[in-house]
C-alpha cells in the first residue's frame, strides 16, 4: 500500500477547516436554476415521442390518456375538455422536463471532458525501438508509446519507463501537477492528461473507445444509465399500482352506467391520471440521474448506479488508518528529557536538530518546540550557518553541526552508538522511556548532543499517530446509522488498539496484509453484510473487487481503478463516508417522493368523486369538503395540482431530500411525518387554492 502524499500531508489547519465546513453538515444542494427549466424545454418536447414514454409505465399511461382526451376534445370542444386535455399533456411534459433538466446538468460536464479528448498523435514504439506516429484512437492494449514534456498522453496506461510530472487538471480539476513513475503504485496515467516535464514510456491498458474519459463522458451524460435493482423493483410496484387504479377506473364506468350516469373519457382519464403515482413516476429517472450527478460534483465517478445504491446499504466500512483516520505522517507529541537535562535543554536540541530537516516528522518537531516551548520557528542567521547532516540509511540519524556543537536525533541504537563513540554514556533511563513509548504505539526518537568534549543524551522525542480532528464524531454518526467502522493498519496490535480507541472506531485489523483484508471482507459478507473500502495499490485490487463498494483513488494503479466500482478523483479516502451518505440520500429521496405521491390520492378522491357522482346521488356532494365550485372546476383543479406538483418537486428531486445521519427509526419518523402526513394535507390546500382561480374561467366556474 502506498500513501497518497497529496492529501496525507495536509496540515492540521487545513483539515480543521475542512471539517469546519462540514460542521452542521447536510449534503449540499447541487445548484438548481429555474432557467434550466426553460433551456431544457426543447429536449422535453422531444421526449414526447411515445417510444421514449414506453420506458416508464406510469407516464405511458398518462400519455395514452392524454392522446385519448385530445381525440375527445377535438370532437367535443368545450372549455372544460380543452383545458383538461391541455393540462393532461402538461403532466407528461413536466415529467419530461424533470428528466431533461437532470440530464442537462451532466451534459455540460461531458462537453468539457470531450474537449480533453481532442485527437492526439501517439508516438508508438516499434519492436526494434524506433518510433512511428499513429492516431491515438488506433492504440491497442499492450502498445508502448513515448510521451515527452508538453505532450498529451494518448491513452490510459501504466508508466513502464521514466518519471514525469503530469498535469491531470483536465480530469480532476486539481491544478497541482502529480508525479508518475514506473514501477510501484504511482504508475497509472490517464489519457487526455499532459506531461509537464521529462519523458516517459507508457504501456497502453485500455481498448480504444473504452478509456477512462470515454467512460466518464458516458456516465455524466447518462447515456449508459441503466436502471438500478432498487429502481426496477420500485418501477414494478408503481406499475402494479397503476394497474390497480386503471382497473378501478375502467370498472367504474359500467358501474356509473348502471347507476344511471356514464362518465366521459376525459373525466375518467382525469381521475386515472390523478390516482396513479405520476409524481414519483415523473421524477424517478431524474432522481437517479441527479444521484449520480451529486457524486460527480464531489469528484467521484461511480462505474454503475448499482454501486451508488449499494453505498446506501453499506454495513461495514474498512478504513485505512494512515491518511484516513490519522494524518499521513507521525507527529512529535511529547519531549521527555533524561538525566540532568531539562525539558528546555531537550527542546533546544530537538529544534536545532530539526531546523533543516524537511521531512514531515522534522517539521512537526519544530512545530512542537514552537507551540509548546516558546522557541523561534525560523532559524537565526547564526543557525543558518550550521552544517546540516541529512538522514542517511547507514547512519539512521539526522542533525546539525554548529559552532563545534553536534546535535543528533534518530533511532535508539544509532544514537546510542554515536554517543558511546564520542565518549559519552547512555543511562538505562533512556531505554525505559523508549520501551514505554513503543508500547504505547508511538515511535521514539532519541536526541543527543556533543559539546565541549562531552556527549550526552538529552532525551527522547515521542512521535505518534495523530487522529484527524472530528473523526470520532463522524464515527459516532456512522454508528448511529448502523454502520460499523473497521480500521486497517500495518501496525502491531498494541499500537492499533491504542489508535482505534482514540479514534473511536468499532474494530481494527492490525498487521494487516492484503489477504487479511480480503478474508475480513469475505467474513463480513458471509454474515450478510455489505462492505465498502478504499484502496489504491495493485495489491488492493482483489479486495476492491470483492468489496460491495470499492473506491479506488485516482492516484492509484490501473489495476486498482479497474477493480473498484468507483474512482475518487481527489484521492481522498475520507470521502467514503460522504459516498455512503449520498447513496442513502438517493434511496430516501425515492422513498419520500413515492410516499408523497401516494398520500396525495386521498384529497383527489374528495375532489373528483363528488364531482362525478353528486348528480346521481346528491348525498355524495357531502364529500366535497373543499367546497370546490363546480364539478368541472373540481376535476380541472385536481389535474392542475397533479401536474404542477411535478414541477415544484423537480428541485427536490435533483437536490435530494435533506439528510442528516441518524438512526433508521428517527429518519423514518421524520420522513413519514413530512412526506406521508404532508402528502395527505398538501393537495387539499393546493386543490382548494387552484380552484379559487379556476372557477374564474368562464364556462367552468
Amino acid at each position, binding site marked *: 500500500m502506498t500513501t497518497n502524499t497529496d492529501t496525507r500531508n495536509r496540515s492540521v489547519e487545513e483539515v480543521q477547516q475542512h471539517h469546519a465546513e462540514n460542521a452542521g453538515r447536510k449534503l449540499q444542494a447541487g445548484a438548481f436554476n429555474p432557467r434550466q427549466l426553460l433551456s431544457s424545454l426543447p429536449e422535453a418536447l422531444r421526449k414526447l415521442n411515445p417510444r421514449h414514454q414506453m420506458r416508464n409505465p406510469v407516464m405511458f399511461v398518462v400519455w395514452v390518456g392524454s392522446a385519448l382526451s385530445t381525440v375527445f376534445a377535438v370532437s367535443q370542444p368545450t372549455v372544460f375538455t380543452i383545458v383538461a386535455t391541455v393540462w393532461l399533456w402538461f403532466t407528461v411534459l413536466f415529467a419530461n422536463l424533470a428528466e431533461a433538466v437532470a440530464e442537462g446538468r451532466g451534459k455540460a460536464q461531458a462537453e468539457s471532458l470531450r474537449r480533453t479528448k481532442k485527437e492526439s498523435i501517439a508516438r508508438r514504439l516499434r519492436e526494434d525501438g524506433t518510433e512511428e506516429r499513429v492516431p491515438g484512437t488506433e492504440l491497442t492494449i499492450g502498445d508502448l508509446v513515448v510521451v515527452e514534456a508538453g505532450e498529451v498522453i494518448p491513452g490510459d496506461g501504466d508508466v513502464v519507463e521514466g518519471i514525469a510530472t503530469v498535469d491531470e487538471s483536465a480530469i480532476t480539476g486539481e491544478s497541482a501537477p502529480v508525479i508518475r513513475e514506473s514501477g510501484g503504485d504511482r504508475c497509472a496515467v490517464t489519457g487526455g492528461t499532459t506531461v509537464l516535464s521529462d519523458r516517459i514510456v507508457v504501456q497502453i491498458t485500455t481498448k480504444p473507445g473504452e478509456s477512462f474519459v470515454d467512460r466518464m463522458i458516458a456516465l455524466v451524460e447518462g447515456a449508459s444509465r441503466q436502471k438500478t*435493482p*432498487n429502481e*426496477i*423493483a*420500485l418501477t*414494478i*410496484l408503481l406499475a*402494479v399500482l397503476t*394497474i*390497480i*387504479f386503471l*382497473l*378501478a*377506473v*375502467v*370498472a*367504474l*364506468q*359500467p*358501474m356509473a*352506467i*348502471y*347507476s344511471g350516469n356514464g362518465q366521459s373519457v376525459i373525466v375518467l382519464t382525469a*381521475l386515472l391520471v390523478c390516482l396513479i403515482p405520476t409524481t414519483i413516476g415523473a421524477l424517478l429517472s431524474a432522481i437517479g440521474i441527479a444521484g449520480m450527478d451529486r457524486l460527480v460534483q464531489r469528484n467521484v465517478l461511480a462505474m454503475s448506479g448499482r454501486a451508488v*445504491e449499494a453505498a*446506501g446499504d453499506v*454495513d461495514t466500512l474498512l478504513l485505512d488508518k494512515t491518511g484516513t483516520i490519522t494524518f499521513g505522517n507521525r507527529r512529535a507529541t511529547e519531549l521527555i528529557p533524561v538525566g540532568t537535562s531539562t525539558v528546555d535543554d531537550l527542546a533546544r536540541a530537538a529544534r536545532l536538530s530539526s531546523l533543516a530537516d524537511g521531512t514531515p516528522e522534522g517539521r512537526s518537531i519544530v512545530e512542537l518546540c514552537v507551540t509548546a516551548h516558546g522557541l523561534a520557528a525560523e532559524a537565526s542567521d547564526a543557525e543558518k550557518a550550521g552544517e546540516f547532516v541529512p538522514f542517511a540509511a547507514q547512519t539512521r540519524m539526522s542533525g546539525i553541526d554548529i559552532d563545534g556543537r553536534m546535535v543528533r536525533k534518530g533511532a535508539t541504537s544509532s544514537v546510542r552508538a554515536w554517543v558511546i563513540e564520542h565518549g559519552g554514556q547512555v543511562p538505562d533511563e533512556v531505554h525505559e522511556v523508549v520501551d514505554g513509548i513503543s508500547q504505547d504505539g508511538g515511535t521514539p526518537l532519541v536526541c543527543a548532543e556533543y559539546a565541549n568534549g562531552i556527549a550526552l543524551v538529552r532525551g527522547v522525542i515521542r512521535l505518534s499517530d495523530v487522529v484527524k480532528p472530528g473523526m470520532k464524531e463522524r464515527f459516532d454518526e456512522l454508528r448511529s*446509522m*448502523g454502520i*460499523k467502522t473497521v480500521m486497517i493498519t500495518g501496525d502491531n496490535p498494541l499500537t492499533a488498539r491504542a489508535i482505534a480507541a482514540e479514534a473511536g472506531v468499532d474494530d481494527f485489523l492490525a498487521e494487516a496484509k492484503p489477504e487479511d483484508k480480503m478474508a475480513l471482507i469475505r467474513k463480513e459478507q458471509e*454474515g*450478510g*453484510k455489505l462492505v465498502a473500502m478504499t484502496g489504491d495499490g495493485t495489491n488492493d485490487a482483489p479486495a476492491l473487487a470483492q468489496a460491495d463498494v470499492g473506491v479506488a483513488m485516482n492516484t492509484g494503479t490501473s489495476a486498482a481503478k479497474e477493480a473498484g466500482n468507483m474512482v475518487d478523483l481527489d484521492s481522498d479516502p475520507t470521502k467514503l463516508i460522504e459516498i455512503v451518505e449520498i*447513496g442513502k*440520500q438517493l434511496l*430516501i429521496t425515492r*422513498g*419520500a417522493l*413515492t*410516499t408523497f405521491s*401516494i398520500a396525495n*390520492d386521498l384529497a383527489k*378522491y374528495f375532489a373528483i*368523486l363528488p364531482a362525478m357522482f353528486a348528480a*346521481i*346521488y346528491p*348525498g*355524495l356532494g357531502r*364529500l366535497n369538503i373543499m367546497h370546490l365550485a363546480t364539478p368541472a372546476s373540481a376535476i380541472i383543479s385536481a389535474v392542475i395540482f397533479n401536474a404542477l406538483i411535478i414541477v415544484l418537486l423537480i428541485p427536490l428531486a435533483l437536490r435530494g431530500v435533506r*439528510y442528516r445521519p441518524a*438512526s*433508521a*427509526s428517527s*429518519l*423514518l*419518523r421524520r*420522513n*413519514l411525518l413530512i*412526506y*406521508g402526513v404532508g402528502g395527505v394535507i398538501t393537495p387539499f390546500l393546493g386543490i382548494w387554492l387552484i380552484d379559487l382561480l379556476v372557477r374564474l374561467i368562464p364556462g367552468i366556474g
Partner: protein
Amino acid sequence: MNDTWAGLLQLALLLAALAVVYRPLGDYMARAFTSKGHWKLERALYKVVRVNPDSEQRWSTYAYGVLGFSFVSVLFLYLLQRLQTVLPLGLGRPEISPSVAFNTAVSFVTNTNWQSYVPEQAFGHLVQMAGLTVQNFVSGAVGIAVAVALIRGFTRANTDRLGNVWVDITRAVVRVLLPIAVLFAVVLMGLGVVQSLSGGVDVTGIDGAQHTVALAPVASQEVIKELGTNGGGVLNANSAHPFENPNGWTNLIEIFLILVIPVSLTRTFGTMIGDRKQGYTLLSVMTFLWGGMLAVIWWAEAHPNGPAALLAGSAMEGKETRFGIPSSALFADSTTGTSTGAVNAAHDSLTGLGGGGALLNMLFSEISPGGVGTGIYSILVFAIIAVFLAGLMVGRTPEYLGKKLGRKEITMASIAILAMPTLVLVFAGIAVVLPATGDALTNSGAHGLSEVLYAYASASNNNGSAFGGLTVTNDWFQSTLGVCMAFGRFIPILAVLCLAGGLAAQRKVPPSAGTLPTSGPLFASMVAGSVLLVAALTFVPALALGPIAEALS
C-alpha cells in the same frame, strides 16, 4: 342490562378468552410445525399415502402438492355429490346437478364455502360428513401450511427447501384442528347444538300445517365451520338457525372459534422467527382493522337510517332477536374479517354503512385477522409492500426480517395483492351491465350495486358469506363466481410460495441501527396504511356508488 352493555360485556369476554389462549395455542402451533418427531397416527397416514415425512421440498414441489391435493379434492367432492343417490346415507335426497356440484366442490376446497344450494334439501349425511366436513378440515390445513411455508422462508437462509407439504397439512389437521374441534363439538352439544343422524322430524305447527324439521350432525360440523374459517352451514340459515347457534353462549363461542386460530398464528409467527414483537405488531394491525370495522358496523346498526327501520325504532330486520344488534355486529365483523362467511344475521339487511363495513372488511384482502393461514400470509405480503414503500425512506434497500426486498419479492407480493382486486373489479364491472343481472337482483340502485360487489368480493376473498338479494344460480354467476373462488385462492398461494422460495434462498442480513424497525406502532401504522391504500383506495370509486351513496342518502 341494556343492549349496548350486554354487547360490551360479550366483547370483553371474547377478548379475554382470546388473550388467555393466545400464547399457549400460538406456541403450541409453532412447535407443531417445527418439531422433528412424528405422531403414530401421522406415521400411519404417511405410510398409506407413501410419503417420506423427513424429506423436504422446494417451493415448486410444495406448490404442486397444494395444487394437486386441491385438484383431487375437487374431483372427489364433485363425484361424492353426483353419486349421492347411489351411496348410503343419502336420506333419499335428490341428484345434484353438475353445475351445483362443481360450484360446491370448488367452494369448499378453496375454503370459501359459498353455498348456492339449500343444504337440508340438497345433501344427505354422507356428503355432509365425508365430503364437506372433511374439506372444512383440510382446506383450512392447506392455508395453515402455506403460511408456515412463508414463515420458513423468513427463518431459513441459503436453502431451496421449504418443508414438506404433506407433513404440514397432516399436522395442521391432526395436531391443531382436530383436537380443538373435538373438544368444542362436545361443548356446543352441551349448550344445545343438535347432533343427529336422523334426517328430520315431522311436526305439526301451531298453524296446523305439517312441517319437517331438518336434523343433521350439526355440532361436529359447526365447530370446524368456525374454527377453519369455512362458514358453510349444515342448515340453510347458517348460524342464525337455532340448531346451529341456539343462544348467546354458543354465539360467543362460535365467534371465539372463528378468531382463535388466525389471531394465535401471529404468535406462532413471532415464535418461529424468534422475535415475538414482530407478531404482536401484525396482530395490532389486524386488531385495529377488526376493531375499526366493528365500530362502523355496530354504530351503523344502532343508528338506523332507512324509513322502515326508523318506523320500527331499530334496524332489526334480518337479525335474530336472541342475539340483538351488538352480537350480530360482532358476528358480522368477525365473519367478514376472517374469510369465514358464516352468518348469524342477513347481511343484505344491514344498513348501508353497516353493509359497507362488512364489504370493506372483506376487501382488505381478509386480514382482519383473516382466514386460518391466509390471514397471516396476506398480512405478511402487505408488510412487505409497506416495508418497500416507506422503507426506502431510511436510506437502505428495504429489508424485512433480515431478507432484502428486491425485484422478485416485489413482483410476487404484487401478484398476490393484485389478484383479488382484479377479479372483483373486472367481474363486478361486467356483471352490472349484463341485462340478466337486473333480473337476478331484488334491489336496484346503490343497494343493487352493493349486492353484486359483495358477491364478487366474497367469492374472490374466499369468504363465502352472501349479501343475499342476488340470485346467483344463472350460468354467468355460477361460472364467474367459481373462477373468482379458484383464482382468488390459488394465485395468491402460488405467489406466496414462490416468494417464500426466494426468501429462503437468500442469506440473512443481520439487523443494525440502520435497519428499518419492523415492530412497534410506527411500523404497524405503515402496514395499516398500505392495507388501506391498496385495498380501500382501489375500491373507493366503486364503494362510492354502492354503500357510501346508500349511507349518505
